[in-house]
């Protein structure tokens, strides 16, 4: 049996240990904020935090995170008011919104590691997250806003 914590809650899994964490989170635990976009670590829609690090849950087996602490978009902030989430709303970032949970988790991880990234560093750090709607200009500005307040 595999035990792990998701958003502070203990979860257990007795099925296939190679099951991608994404499907464990979405289908078995029922937290649907984390999205499926490619299954191959190409798009970032499935990004969650493992401690402070952003990981692609579609290529992470449940067994890889045994005993670890996973944070999904639902657990990023108790009231949904993490500085990145607030900046996202202030800058009206989303179009369809489907990529945005992954974008926000990636941005939150970036700011934990580099609280004041330059625009070039933002573009570099966010380049694993695709937005097919093309909200990139606002994503870049919102990360900047979250880090600087302006």
């Amino acid at each position: 049996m595999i035990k792990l914590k998701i958003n502070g809650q203990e979860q257990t899994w007795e099925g296939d240990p190679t099951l991608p964490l994404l499907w464990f989170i979405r289908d078995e635990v029922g937290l649907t904020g984390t999205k499926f976009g490619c299954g191959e670590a190409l798009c970032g829609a499935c990004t969650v935090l493992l401690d402070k690090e952003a990981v692609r849950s579609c290529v992470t087996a449940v067994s890889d995170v045994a005993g670890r602490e996973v944070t999904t978009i639902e657990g990023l902030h108790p009231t949904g008011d993490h500085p990145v989430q607030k900046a996202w709303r202030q800058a009206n970032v989303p179009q369809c919104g489907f990529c945005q949970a992954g974008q926000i988790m990636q941005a939150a991880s970036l700011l934990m590691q580099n609280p004041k990234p330059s625009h070039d560093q933002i573009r570099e750090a966010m380049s694993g997250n695709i937005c097919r709607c093309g909200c990139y200009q606002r994503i870049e500005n919102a990360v900047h806003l979250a880090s600087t307040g302006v």
Partner: protein
Amino acid sequence: MNIIANPNKLRGFERSIKVENVSRRDIVKGLGIAGAFVLAAPLTSRPALAAYETGAGKMPHGVVVDPRVFVSIAPDGMVTIIAHRSEMGTGVRTSLPLIVAEEMEADWSRVHVQQAPGDEAKYGNQDTDGSRSTRHYLLPMRQIGACARTMLEAAAAKRWGVPATEVKAANHEVVHNASGRKIGFGELAADAAKEPVPNIDGLKLKDPKDFRYLGKGEVSIVDLRDITTGTARYGADVRLPGMKYAVIARPPVTGGKLVSFDGSEAMKVPGVEKVMEVKGWPWPSKFQPLGGVAVIARNTGAAIKGRDALKLIWDDGANGKYDSVSYRTELEAAARKPGLVVRKEGDVDAALKGADKVVVGEYYLPHLAHVSMEPPVAVANVKGDKAEIWAPVQSPGGTHEDVAKTLGIPVENVTVNVTLLGGGFGRKSKCDFALEAALLSKELGAPVKVQWTREDDVRHDFLHTVSVERIEAGLDKNGKVIAWRHRSVAPSIASTFAAGAVHQAPFELGMGLIDMPFEIANIQCENPEAAAHTRIGWFRSVSNIPRAFAVQSMVGEIAHATNRDQKEMLLELIGSPRIVNLSSVKDPWNYGEPYSSYPIDTARLRKVVELVAEKGEWGRSVPKGHGLGIAVHRSFVSYIATIVEVAVDEKGKLTVPRVDTAIDCGTFVNPERIQSQLEGAAVMGLSLAKYGEITFKDGKVQQKNLDDFPVIRIDESPRVTNVYIVPPGPETPPSGVGEPGVPPFAPALVNAIFAATGKRIRALPIGKQLET
């Protein structure tokens, strides 16, 4: 108007909406230094838009203008407004209800938006495509709001025993100025519902100078908070008790069939519960499923793993020879010979023969996949002769009808709940994935979710067509263009509906071919034959992509051949301000709109060119290795001009430091969402220009995921995209926004590349063509 004692009684995709009002200042602040958002001139007071005719009434099931269908008021004053079109990122789920709220004087912070299920008999047409929502519904939504306001005012006047002319609705209450009495919407709701629905002809619409919301861009989308907290519900997020998870192995070649399969290895995968055949339809069959073998499991991961273990034998059928390399040669050969004449003015053959110089451009644009961020997905629960579907569909009404037909049950027994769409771009106008879920659920006797993987999405899309566009332009000795022949050859979307369709349909010919606006004495447009070998469908802006690419690249080529500035050349070709006369065209289509309301107006075309040139600083000096390109295109009855600045380094690496786009989309609702659509269009335009290509070999798509069908990522996206909106004239009807930003981008880009490098790109994608 309805009164709802218990709001839970309402059908459909019920969700509570929290609205965050973001002030204009905050929006601008949020945008930071990059991406200035500028209205070309302030919106001033103007008379209420006079009634204008649109093609809305000719859409299936037409338009329903009935406040009782779209508006409910609860006793506590909460106003519920129905959004009957699908939200895929354009903001329509916010903007249409906002129009109703504006006109009925509702306070937006006390409005719930509720998504309508697919039911066109009740709501009117729901096809969310063709950049039609605002264009077709601005006036009807205003009328619905005005009806509701009139009924509320009448109810208040009766209660106070004063003439209705003495009372006025304002900000969620009705006021009697003479006595200072006020009464809230909630308190009036029951009485207002008893008032007759006013005749729309006599309705008084608000004076636009009194607008609180429309045209201002200060209201954020209703789903904003849910999207940022992970609680917004898309198709895949629907979970039902006892629901099974399915993925399907489909025939790798369009029109192929399953010969046999062995699911024994798949059944050994932990979590897999069943392997079963799915019914398929012969090609072409509109949007019916392709068929194949489904793996049913307790979660999606197990189903995918099980599918990998299937042993499958297919019969590829007649399209098994489809090969993109040889098909391109066929299209080129067809474009070099005369084809069906679809527009003819003057005598092009004679004029080309007599020309001092002929400039020829032959352009190739490949198939594209939509790759909306959310792959197709649907949940179905079929019990006996009843079916309920949850799906991210652009065609709620069509899905409603197609599910009933496919299952052979009455349409009244089908409920289609429309979730949010994680992007659509035309892919989700085809409901094959919902039909698959319905068929599987029926057979399993349990609710089921069918999830398409990205590989499924890339390999079994209804692809954007592939085309060769060939233009010959004849110039006189002064460099004036006197002849223009454009041959467009591409498999038609009609081939998805009927076997043997080899010519483009009027709705494709009307996208940049026959409606070409230049003032040239001799014009001939031809459409040689092309047979389809895969499913062709609508892709955001459709045939406008190849047409605008060819026509606007050609402008750049002629400018170069005659040593003139691109913008000056463009304005010369557009010619005098006039309404283009298309009397030589049998079916000018015009996006389904009456030409009287939506003519091709070259004054508006010139205006967006001049506006983008001024704001985008056309002609500015740029560093070495940089270049500027310009293009303009009318599509979805809107006018858009784009300037792209490119930088190409010594190795041929392409970057885009700046994009400027000007749009004239007539009267508009939410400029902030227009801006976001055009920012996104620049990214999508860059994606298709730089990388977009689906190829076939032995009838099979050769790409599979976002590594071999790449799209632009943030590190390659334009550094800044500026958007300028032409303020509408007092009587300019609304026109499209979602799609028209895409077509001018790629030609502006290649014109810029030519300016930077002297290299003319005539085939997309650019790929490695610039590498040295």
